[in-house]
């Protein structure tokens, strides 16, 4: 078997596996639904996710340990992941193949020539990792005050090194070392960074696996899957999807212009693996420099890594097309370096590295000076149950959209720019879309989340049962009645759909009855009254429907109003119950009115968990008359609304 056949089989296998994982990320207990399928496996294999979360949290969460396997193999083999596994890479390679099919050999050769701008992906990688490592940077910077002994040790080491350098007579280096140590000491002893200076995980924006999961889950599947009831019984909607779709289409169709455009120029994971392939034991190269220079091998080179000249191994995606094309058997995958020479490291200058690094660090205050992590937090951003406090949440979320895909009610959506660039495409609930609110007995999102940005909570914890009783249920917000829009409050219409649907027990929405006068006494003059019916002058009820059971005839009693339920009516006559006791109807004064009985909803905030079922069901369909905001959510005490009683 040719090696490229093996590669194609592997690529197809992993692409199908990926699609399968997307399909089975559906809540249910059928064999093709989520019942133990390790749907995150490809994300977990992605070492950039592991590395990013290590930098922001200093832990390697559960399955992300698979990234170590990828790293290990890359250290030995090179970027096999890009050429053999990555499903996004497979898509690129295929579309790229379509794009270059009709081109001449000369055109193909020029398309596949190494381009200086392939360094951009390294800049992106450095930028993203720098912003993820801010906590580490500050820990180092403040070492003098936080761990003065360690700092003293380092200073001692610096002195020794300086002496060695002095001995070798390079005074300039010594001066720079001393200046650096001095600056470190001054800053490190000088104070504390403002609180918005903490790491931010933004790798998910461009990391190919989260990007692909997000695009397929939220854009492709809802379009394609709309026709298949098995995939989702109801149409899935995702708010703020435009940009995700656009980027996906752009990434895919740019391959028609330049094959593997994304892999070559953008992909931060490819860049990471490129760096790691530096010491790879086996690598692509020429066995003999004296080849005929036909360059045919480069016409299908997917990585644009120049196998005919000095091969850039950090760009090589191990597609093996060059080896397959060489008719002379001169190109091989061997432990010896290429006879034509090789360039192992990425093409990034010190200056580029520094700029990318510093901009990555500087991006954080630029994103956070909006105060979204401080007093200016966004009340409409309802995070799913089990989500960590916002700062910790953003240190883990890779925007992969798995929670939004698994959410059975389709309430989780990728946030647009509402929560700033930093919160782009992170999950937040929208109770207008979807089939209900956040289901009381559902913990799917936290258990599918690959990075524990949403913790894998148990039902007991969610509902505040058993050993979690002391904590109470997890609240994701609080419902507020908008009395200017609520039918019983603003429009004298009975409703209380919200109260009926409140799933919490005892209910978090209760009602108080009030009778509102809808036809005033001065409009009504009694003509005569019998035991069960009363006739009025004129046609006061012509435009009314008073027989709905909610309307009452009311007359002033000595203490309070006396009321009779209206059974049926004509334009000027009412049938009422209970029957009239002549003495109690103030016929002579004509002081009767028509009233409607309303149950008006109130929220008991100590019980409300913010599930949004009320908001979802509210019949005021535009801007709902009862809405959940993040007030009182349990994940951070800054959100506390009430003192615990």
């Amino acid at each position: 078997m040719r090696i490229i056949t093996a590669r194609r089989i592997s690529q197809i296998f992993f692409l199908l596996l990926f699609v399968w994982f997307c399909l089975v990320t559906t809540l249910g207990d059928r064999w093709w639904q989520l019942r133990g399928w390790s749907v995150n496996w490809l994300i977990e294999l992605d070492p950039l996710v592991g590395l990013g979360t290590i930098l922001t949290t200093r832990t390697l969460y559960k399955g992300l340990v698979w990234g170590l396997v990828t790293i290990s193999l890359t250290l030995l083999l090179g970027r096999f992941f890009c050429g053999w596994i990555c499903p996004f890479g497979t898509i690129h390679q295929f579309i790229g193949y379509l794009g270059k099919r009709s081109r001449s050999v000369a055109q193909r050769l020029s398309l596949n020539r190494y381009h200086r701008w392939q360094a951009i992906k390294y800049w992106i990688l450095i930028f993203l990792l720098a912003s993820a490592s801010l906590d580490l940077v500050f820990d180092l910077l403040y070492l003098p005050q936080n761990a003065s002994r360690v700092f003293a040790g380092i200073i001692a080491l610096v002195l020794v090194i300086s002496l060695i350098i002095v001995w070798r007579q390079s005074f300039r280096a010594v001066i720079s070392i001393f200046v650096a140590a001095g600056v470190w000491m001054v800053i490190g002893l000088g104070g504390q960074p403002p609180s918005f200076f903490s790491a931010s995980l933004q790798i998910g924006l461009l990391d190919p696996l989260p990007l692909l999961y997000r695009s397929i889950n939220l854009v492709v599947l809802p379009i394609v899957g709309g026709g298949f009831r098995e995939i989702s019984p109801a149409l899935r909607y995702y708010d703020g999807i435009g940009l995700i779709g656009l980027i996906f289409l752009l990434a895919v169709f740019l391959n028609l212009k330049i094959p593997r455009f994304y892999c070559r120029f953008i992909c931060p994971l490819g860049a990471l693996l490129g760096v790691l392939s530096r010491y790879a034991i086996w690598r692509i190269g020429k066995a003999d420099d004296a080849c005929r220079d036909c360059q045919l091998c480069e016409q299908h080179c997917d990585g644009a890594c120049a196998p005919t000249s000095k091969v850039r191994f950090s760009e090589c995606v191990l597609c093996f097309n060059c080896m397959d094309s060489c008719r002379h058997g001169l190109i091989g995958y061997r432990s010896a370096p290429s006879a034509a020479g090789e360039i192992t490291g990425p093409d990034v200058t010190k200056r580029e590295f520094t700029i990318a690094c510093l901009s990555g660090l500087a991006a954080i205050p630029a994103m956070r000076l909006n105060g979204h992590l401080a007093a200016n937090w966004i009340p409409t951003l309802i995070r799913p149950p089990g989500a960590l406090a916002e700062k910790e949440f953003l240190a883990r979320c890779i925007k992969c959209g798995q929670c939004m895909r698994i959410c059975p009610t389709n309430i989780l959506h990728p946030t647009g720019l509402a929560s700033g660039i930093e919160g782009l495409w992170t999950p937040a609930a929208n109770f207008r879309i979807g089939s209900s609110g956040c289901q009381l007995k559902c913990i799917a999102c936290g258990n599918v989340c690959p990075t524990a940005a949403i913790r894998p909570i148990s039902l007991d914890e969610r509902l505040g049962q058993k050993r979690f009783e002391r904590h109470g249920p997890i609240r994701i917000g609080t419902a507020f009645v908008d009395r200017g829009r609520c039918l019983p409050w603003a429009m004298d219409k009975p409703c209380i759909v919200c109260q009926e649907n409140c799933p919490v027990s005892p209910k978090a929405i209760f009602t108080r009855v009030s009778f509102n006068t809808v036809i005033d006494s001065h409009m009504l003059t009694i003509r005569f009254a019998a035991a069960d019916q009363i006739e009025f002058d004129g046609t006061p009820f012509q435009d009314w429907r008073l027989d709905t059971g909610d309307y009452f005839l009311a007359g002033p009693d000595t203490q309070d109003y006396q009321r009779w339920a209206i059974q049926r009516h004509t334009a000027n006559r009412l049938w009422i119950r209970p029957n009239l006791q002549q003495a109690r109807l103030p016929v002579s004064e004509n002081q009767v009115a028509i009233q409607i009985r309303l149950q008006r909803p109130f929220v008991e905030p100590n019980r409300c968990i913010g599930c949004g079922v009320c908001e979802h069901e509210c019949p005021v369909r535009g801007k709902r008359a009862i809405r959940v905001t993040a007030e009182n959510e349990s994940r951070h005490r800054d959100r506390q609304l009430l003192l615990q009683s």
Partner: protein
Amino acid sequence: MTNDPKPSDLNRRQFIIRSTKAGAALAATWAVGYGLYDTVGPSSQAVRQTSVSLADFSVSGQQPRMCVARGADRKKSLAYALKAVGGLESYIKSGDRVLLKVNAAFATPPMLSATTHPILVTELCRRCFQAGAANVIVTDNPINDPTSCFTLTGIAEAARSAGAELIVPRQQSFRPITVPNARLIRDWPLLYEPFRQVNKVIGITPVKDHHRSGASMVMKNWYGLLGGRRNIFHQEVHTIIKELAMMVRPTLVILDGTTTMMRNGPTGGSLSDLKSTNTMIVSTDQVAADAFGATLLGKNLSDLPFIAQAQEAGIGTADYQSLNPQMVDIS
């Protein structure tokens, strides 16, 4: 014959070097991965700072004392009242570091009596230094913008002119505190920075009406030591005032009733809200001071439940008469 290595030897050497590096990188990767491996996931709560606690700043071995001086001149009243409780020297010793917790809650001029009068601040600082204090710190965590508050109330200038240090709270100034037996002040941010450096605490504040709690006096003044979203405690304002009094055991409290804000408290905003009551209360018992202050507002104990609650918590006595307060008339 040359001694140059053959290409294959060179390759072998390179191969060995590369393999060693790859092996080292592999080992490092797995070591880091193993060290950071986490099967449990994060806990439900964000990482908290360690709690702090406050010392008892009262002078031990003294009977509780109180004095009420009547007069329109703050300086004079303070002088007489302090003398009557044994002189400031019996509370502030040489080398003491003193914290003055003023009320600088609002960015309003001293004339409106919503904040501690600057003349009192200067005078008290001066007397502390006279008594031998090594350092005097003036602080508050105001409701309005801190810098504006300290400037407009005249307190910043008062502290500076007396040689005291003004601490304007920053985010880093706060540390969580849990008051023993308290229900509300649990793991709550406290303006701790000034407390690091002091061994005596004096509370000094005007008598004011307060729409929610009935009165803002000595005990309520400690509210300005809290940080965070402290106004949620307004849901149980009497409990929080009691707990604040449990939190701070001051050396001395000074309640300035020279002018009393009778209505629209705690901000006031109009001279018509004010009334000359010409009283200066100095006490070691904060509950007794507030109980007397209530009379200036024309309120009794049933109007101000926090006073009885504080007495019940053993902080002091609401029956100020039992302290035999000295009444000094200086007009």
